């Protein structure tokens, strides 16, 4: 299992154990983490599963593709370096210990 911590905008932290193969968005959904909407269900079509990745993790994640990059630009208060769409991040053993923070809102 892979341990991932989601921190809500108010600081509430949720540490969950996820099976590899899911996405970081699905991990939030399946564990009832508030603040990730994912209206499109993971099709990279809505930008409502946006998070800020902890600084030390940015380089350790697979890079954004063009689609994610473009969608992120118009997410709620994106950060050019730390923002990611969680539906595009697959849970792998290498992500064990990942920490992401949720924005105040998604849209």
């Amino acid at each position, binding site marked *: 299992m892979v341990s991932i911590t989601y921190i809500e905008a108010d600081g509430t932290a949720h540490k969950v154990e996820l099976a590899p193969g899911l996405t970081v968005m699905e991990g939030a959904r*399946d564990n*009832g983490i508030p603040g990730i909407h994912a209206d499109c*269900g*993971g099709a990279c*079509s809505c930008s409502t599963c946006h998070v800020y990745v902890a600084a030390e993790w940015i380089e350790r994640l697979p890079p954004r593709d063009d689609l994610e990059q*473009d*969608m992120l630009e118009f997410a709620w208060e994106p950060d050019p370096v730390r923002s990611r769409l969680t539906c595009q991040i697959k849970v792998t053993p290498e992500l064990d210990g990942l920490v992401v923070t949720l924005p105040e809102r998604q849209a």
Partner: protein
Amino acid sequence: MTDKGVVIIGAGQAGFSAASKLRDLGHGGPITLIGNEPAPPYQRPPLSKAYLLGEMARERLFLRPPGFYAERDITLLTGCTATEIRREARQVVLSDGNALPYRRLLLATGARPRLLPGADLDGVLVMRSLADADRLAQACQPGLRLLVVGGGYIGLEAAASAVKLGLRVTLIEAAPRILNRVAAPQTSDYFRDLHLSRGVDLREGVGLAHLTGAGGRVTGAVLTDGSELPADLVVAGIGVLPNIELAQAAGLTCENGISTDEYCRTADPAIFAAGDCTSFPWRGGRIRLESVGNAIDQAEVAAANMLGAGQVYQAKPWFWSDQFDVKLQIAGLSGAHDRVVTRLGAGPARSHWYFDGDRLQAVDAMNDPRVFMVAKRVLERGGPVDAALVADPASDLRALLAG
């Protein structure tokens, strides 16, 4: 049980979203979510795409894990059909004969596919439910000949997925062009070229005269131009019908859907409606939307209003479709427009902007998510839009958001 609570008929995206929102808003009374399918609430959009292609496991379709409903004290009744609404008594009668009392009732009954004549033949399928997708996935064996009837989004997505699975695909559209009802000729042209280039035998202006069969199994079709087409499988993508029968039988007004006011309320103030089954006020008329975005947003407003919030539902229509390597994202509704402006983006990106005078109505963005996101913002804001700026591929669209 003294509090009669909320009963929701329909456990699709709208029914699920309403149940979840009611708890988020602090509703402490009973919530019963009635679904006529065996599975817990799931996402439909991947069914014709990733799920059909075997790229997405069944569990990942579920909107929440099965334990969610008990944790949030939502009574989920699967495989259960509501057969009657007794408005006087404020009860919903179930297929098992039980009657459930309600204080507020939400109709989220969705829609069902229109069927072809001859739909009872083996090998004639539709694409709506998880069971439909499972049947289709099992039937889609490489080398088989598939006939898709209907060139709307569902038909085109099914055709694209089937080609990827190695089937030989013919798609027929009775109207002069695919996407005739929902998009401009420019968008039809784009997707016609895409499908033809991937080997789909796409024929427009020709409909189905009748299916042919032998021994109870489909063998092909006779088309309206007299041609005969052999087929091992047929998929109908000829639209859906809103599930309004329960509402009609209860005497609720229906006009191409269960009619609601701007508060998602039907003719009965205790009964609300949301999602694909619902006809609601829009720019002086009424519309019914078939989309996830509408199902979620409308259900959440209905949930708030069942608790007395008095929110007006303001639809912000948006849609998407994935076909081959093209992601189509649509913002707005193209209904009333007098011209379409094309913007060419980098590489394969292209978008079609629907204008009515200087007002933007909708945008079809193909592989151009930046355009889609800008268009959504522009449409939400309203006001005139400079078509010349849009048409200039070198312009920065952010200028549309300035000021």
